[in-house]
């Protein structure tokens, strides 16, 4: 039987009190998840007992560090069902992965006739790099609109896709509204025009199954820190044939075959795309975080987060003056709302005093805010350790907001 209290006990942060003296009520999982003890212990064990640089030392410790690092790569490959571990490139996070594709692949491939599609709900990390590379290459940057209910306008997407479309960059789940995009269908549509599909899986990796072979996406990016892993480690997945044409936009140690005064040859991917000393401990601990997810059950995480969200949606709806933004297609773990005409930052400050951590602002999705005609929202996002008591606490604290601000 799933027991949220047993899960909570595995996260040390929940045993300390917030500044308000209340236990931490952490509803900002879309920003980053908390870390379970196993992940912290893994970091500690690497630095305490296994620390050596990888891919260079000819001694036991270095050999072990390298083995563990490569094992983590295999764990990631298994987790997203990549065909081959070599399709998994470690990098700093989603942002870095997307920039690697934009500057290492798109910049060389695009010309003035080409079109790049993004959606209006993208995080700036999956928007700005494409806008920039289009400016650099003269390609046409086009934005697929969202409807007022927060869903992607699929009809428009169909209209906009054409033989000039070289690439479609799209998020699996909106980090602001929680909209779940029908990726399977979208990838098929784009592939009819031979367009590459780049998936931002930052929000889905620890919520729903991400199977790159089934999706048939060309590239995919996510961050470890949103999946119970450390900050500073992320993953760029690419099909072998695409990774092999990805130009390494960072160059230096580790990634070369041979360097002479006249020219340098690079290792094949993934190592040719991992210049310098990577975050080894973080990569290994990401492997542990993925083990944690598998152990808890990804399906269980999804179900629990969804039911907590539905409970929250219900409870919030009973408050006068609540406006839920969306409601988005599908039920994810993310929900955005407004309360009366109180500014989201004022709401977040008052909630913060009650020990409830939420996010307020534009959530790095300014184009989406413009499309919806709003400036900012309050966002709550759930994970495996949240419970209905916390939702009740949130609703009570929103009552305080109304009292103070009326």
């Amino acid at each position, binding site marked *: 039987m799933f027991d949220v209290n047993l899960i909570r006990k595995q996260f040390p942060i929940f045993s300390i009190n917030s*500044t*308000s003296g209340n236990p931490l009520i952490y509803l900002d999982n879309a920003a980053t998840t908390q870390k379970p003890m196993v992940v912290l212990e893994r970091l500690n064990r690497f630095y305490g007992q296994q620390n050596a640089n990888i891919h260079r030392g000819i001694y036991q410790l270095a050999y072990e560090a390298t083995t563990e690092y490569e094992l983590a790569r295999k764990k990631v490959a298994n987790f997203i069902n990549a065909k081959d571990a070599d399709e998994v490139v470690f990098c700093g996070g989603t942002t870095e992965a997307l920039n690697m594709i934009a500057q290492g692949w798109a910049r060389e491939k695009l010309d003035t006739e080409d079109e790049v599609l993004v959606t209006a709900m993208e995080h700036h990390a999956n928007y700005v790099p494409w806008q920039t590379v289009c400016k650099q290459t003269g390609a046409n940057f086009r934005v697929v609109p969202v409807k007022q209910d927060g869903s992607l306008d699929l009809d428009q997407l169909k209209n906009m896709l054409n033989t000039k479309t070289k690439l479609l960059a799209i998020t699996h789940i909106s980090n602001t509204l929680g909209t779940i995009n029908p990726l399977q269908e979208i990838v098929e549509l784009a592939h009819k025009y031979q367009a590459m599909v780049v998936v931002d899986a930052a929000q889905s990796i620890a919520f729903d199954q991400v199977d790159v072979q089934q999706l048939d996406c060309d590239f995919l990016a996510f961050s470890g820190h949103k999946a119970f892993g450390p900050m500073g480690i992320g993953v760029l997945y690419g099909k072998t044939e695409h990774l092999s044409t990805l130009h390494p936009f960072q160059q230096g140690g580790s990634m070369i075959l041979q360097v002479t005064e006249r020219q340098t040859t690079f290792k094949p991917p993934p190592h040719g795309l991992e210049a310098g000393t990577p975050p080894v401990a973080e990569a290994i601990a990401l492997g542990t975080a993925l083990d944690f997810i598998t152990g808890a059950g990804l399906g269980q995480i999804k179900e629990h987060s969804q039911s907590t969200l539905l409970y929250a949606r219900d409870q919030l709806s009973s408050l006068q003056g609540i406006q839920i933004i969306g409601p988005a297609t599908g039920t994810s773990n993310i929900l955005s709302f407004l309360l009366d005409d*109180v*500014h*989201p*930052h*004022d709401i977040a*400050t*008052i909630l*913060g*005093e009650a020990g409830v951590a939420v996010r*307020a*602002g*534009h959530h790095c999705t*300014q184009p989406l*805010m413009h499309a919806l005609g709003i*400036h*900012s929202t309050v966002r709550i996002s759930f994970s495996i350790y949240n419970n209905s008591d916390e939702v009740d606490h949130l609703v009570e604290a929103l009552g305080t907001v109304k009292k*103070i*601000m009326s």
Partner: protein
Amino acid sequence: MKDALKQLYNKLILDRQKNPVGFEKRENAQTVLDAYNPVCGDQFKLYLDFAGGRITNATYHGYGCALSKASTSLLVEGLAGKSVSDCEEFIEYYFRTLDNDDEQAPEIYKALALAKKFPGRKKCTTLSWEAVSNFIGTTHLRENGE
């Protein structure tokens, strides 16, 4: 801390953000300044007119939280009619009270000074003031006007 919250969101601030003095769009003002906080998206336009080395009219318009709206209202209200050097003094005094908890300061200043106790909120009380301060510091208003 509950008390601090009540002091921060006190009647003076809430009244002012609900019925802000000087909240008026004037696109044809002589000078239009942007006060923008990329962290939260708060964005005001500050509309200033000058004559003879004085600010003859100051208003603002835009989107922001209770604290930024109230503090910007205080700003434009205070600027109107002041000479450029008085404006500088006025703004410096405001910054000083925010930092030093001056007992003699007007109640609303003291309330705004509490913002620094709340994570990420101090900027809300200084955003527009900094915009005007930077503008005055970098223009030739003084030479032309005084």
